[in-house]
């Protein structure tokens, strides 16, 4: 008993102050949104596009700020935030942004050129009144690799403690207000996912976490998968990444519940 108490003292208080305080420090090599410095990209050689494993980079036609050069459009829902495009660029024009805030409410908002994605807005007022102070989620892994699952689950540990915001992962869909889905939706999980969704009482929401759940990720196009959660159920929040950093997931959840109004000022 004494040892337990001493250990408790030694371990101290570990929960992050965020969102009231600054977010936990991200690693300096953190990879956020892909950015292309077009000043250094003179010939549009498109080697980044060819290197991309998921066809997340596409040529965007049109004129940009007066220049008529072709630019790249990036689909953050497909992007694995890997190193392949940056490594392929012979001019060092491709880098990763450090911003962890990547979550959107609409799938198409994840497709961007230079600008950050349009931030997720809170749920509609009536829904917010019901779910805003107590959100219980059932997690369903439908072909996920256990990385998105792990970094969602970590939000329940003392370091992040989403219980502070009335959020919790629950054991049964019948106790849940929504699903948090990971994985590309393997064909073998499709029926189970549908049934789990049906078992959640209305009103209910769906959150897609990770490139797989948004677009199929590296498995997009495989006959064995269905290219993401939206192929089966309506999705209310898209959290990109492979896997997304826990901070990205938390930011998304807080935005959805309207608890992140002032975060952008921190």
């Amino acid at each position, binding site marked *: 008993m004494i*040892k337990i108490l001493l250990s408790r003292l030694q371990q101290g208080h570990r929960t992050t102050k965020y969102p009231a305080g600054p977010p936990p420090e991200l690693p300096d090599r953190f990879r956020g949104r892909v950015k292309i410095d077009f000043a250094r990209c003179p010939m549009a050689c498109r080697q980044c596009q060819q290197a991309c*494993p998921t066809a997340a980079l596409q040529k965007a036609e049109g004129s940009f700020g007066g220049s008529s050069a072709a630019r790249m459009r990036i689909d953050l829902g497909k992007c694995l935030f890997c190193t392949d495009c940056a490594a392929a660029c012979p001019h060092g024009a491709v880098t990763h942004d450090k911003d962890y805030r990547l979550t959107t409410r609409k799938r198409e908002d994840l497709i961007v050129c230079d600008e950050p994605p349009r931030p997720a807005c809170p749920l509609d007022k009536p829904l917010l009144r019901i779910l805003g102070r107590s959100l219980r989620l059932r997690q369903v892994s439908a*072909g996920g690799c256990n*990385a998105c699952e*792990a970094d969602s689950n970590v939000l*329940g540990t003392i370091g992040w403690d989403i219980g502070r915001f009335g959020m919790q992962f629950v054991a049964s869909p019948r106790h849940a207000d929504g699903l948090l889905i990971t994985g590309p939706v393997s064909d*073998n999980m499709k029926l189970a996912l549908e049934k789990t969704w049906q078992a959640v009482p209305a009103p209910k929401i769906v959150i897609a976490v990770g490139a797989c759940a948004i677009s199929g990720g590296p498995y997009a196009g495989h006959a064995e998968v269905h290219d993401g959660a939206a192929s089966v159920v309506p999705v209310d929040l898209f959290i990109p990444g492979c896997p997304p950093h826990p901070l990205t997931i938390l930011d998304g959840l807080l935005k959805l519940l309207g608890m992140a109004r002032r975060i952008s000022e921190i």
Partner: protein
Amino acid sequence: MNGLLQLRNAQAVRADSVPRLSVEEFREAVICAVEGGARLSAMFGRPAEGNRLLVTAVLANDPDGTLQACSTVVDGGYDSITPDCPQAHWFEREIAEQWGVRPQGHPWLKPVRFQPPCRPAAGQPPAAERPVIGVTDFFRVEGHEIHEVAVGPVHAGVIEPGHFRFQCFGENVLHLEISLGYQHRGVERAMIGGPTARSSHYMETLAGDTTIGHATAYCQLLEALSGSHVPARAEVLRGVALELERVANHVGDLGALAGDVGFLPTLSYCGRIRGDVLNLTAMLCGNRFGRGMVRPGGVGFDMDSARVEELLKRLAVIAKDTAISANLLWDTPSVQARFEGAGTVSRELAEQIGLVGPAARACGLERDIQNHHPSGIYRFAHIPLSGWDSGDVFARAYVRWLEIQRSLAFVSEQLRSLPEDVVMASPSSPAGNRFAVSMVEGWRGEICHVAVTDDRGRLAAYKVADPSFHNWFGLACALRNQPISDFPLCNKSFNLSYCGHDL
């Protein structure tokens, strides 16, 4: 030696040097080798001439650090190896499911992952044969007061899906059948014809908690096939990343085991410390799971001295915090009472069914790729093998604790003596008509990848054997005559991968 090809871990040979035996000789060879102490590390099929199937077996001889390989051509059916060599049971089921050949006399021929056949049987449309997930003839115990409990695919925790069928007499589990396949994404099929831009990403997401382990196995395999050299500094950094992965997962498991017996201090501390270790991996490469770290030819990220210093500083804190929270487990009698004697697997059984990794070492078996078939940095720097012999939840927990300490010491030592070198050699493409096996001791145990290239150097076959493939059956055995309420505890003490199994 008995007509089998001898090779070593991460060594490529000519594909046609793998001997093609008759089915009888092949059975004999595999059964004899396993009786002589070898382990069946992989067995897989690929199409052969005339709609037949070329089956290849890879055997590991741990004491002398060699591997053996042999093949045979199967047409329709053959006499199953499993009755004489139980280690083959899951592999034979897999081959039967994928290729439609029939191992006659197999005692338990059911689907492994309910995947569509890799090639349609003659005269049948492909879709007609597609099995329906979870629909199979589950073993049933009949009798007064016998009841059946079905769990999954969607579980109560934040974990992956799988189906468990318990046959119970009161609280007591007479039999557990584990039915998987829900996570099947077609990885092996998609590897064929590669390497492509996606290949590395398939490997990194094959089992996301084993990103470094599988990526290392893959890169080692490609490097063997192409005969390319990896800079010493990159070998060390791969080892550092692999051990950090081991520590993160083992620490997480100790916490989860504590949680399953209701001991909250270690649950909370270890949950947090696991995250701290993942953050160290993120210091290496920007991603908590090590995405982008291991790449063919070396590693994607180098270290500078400031980073090394910071890592060492944080490692020391982690070592201290982990020791305090892990030792609470061993010092608390109520925890020990729940760990000891729960889910025991005997050494004999473990040997028969071919357990690997900490689960095998907890039964007193000396099985460790790093020690017996070392590759990369492990050829020069040894981590002592950690073992225990009681085969129960306690042993599986305690082996993890021993490994955590040794891995942390290894990481600090390696970081202090990083060789000066580049971290990436320009990779060359695989040579044609080659065969190679690559093994890595991941945190769950032996990861085995086997590849064969066609005459243009493209992957003609790619086989992955995640440690979970060997160990799921061990969990089923561990549950015999246990109270069903101990299932979460036993399950966590194995902590196997669903996606790594389902591919």
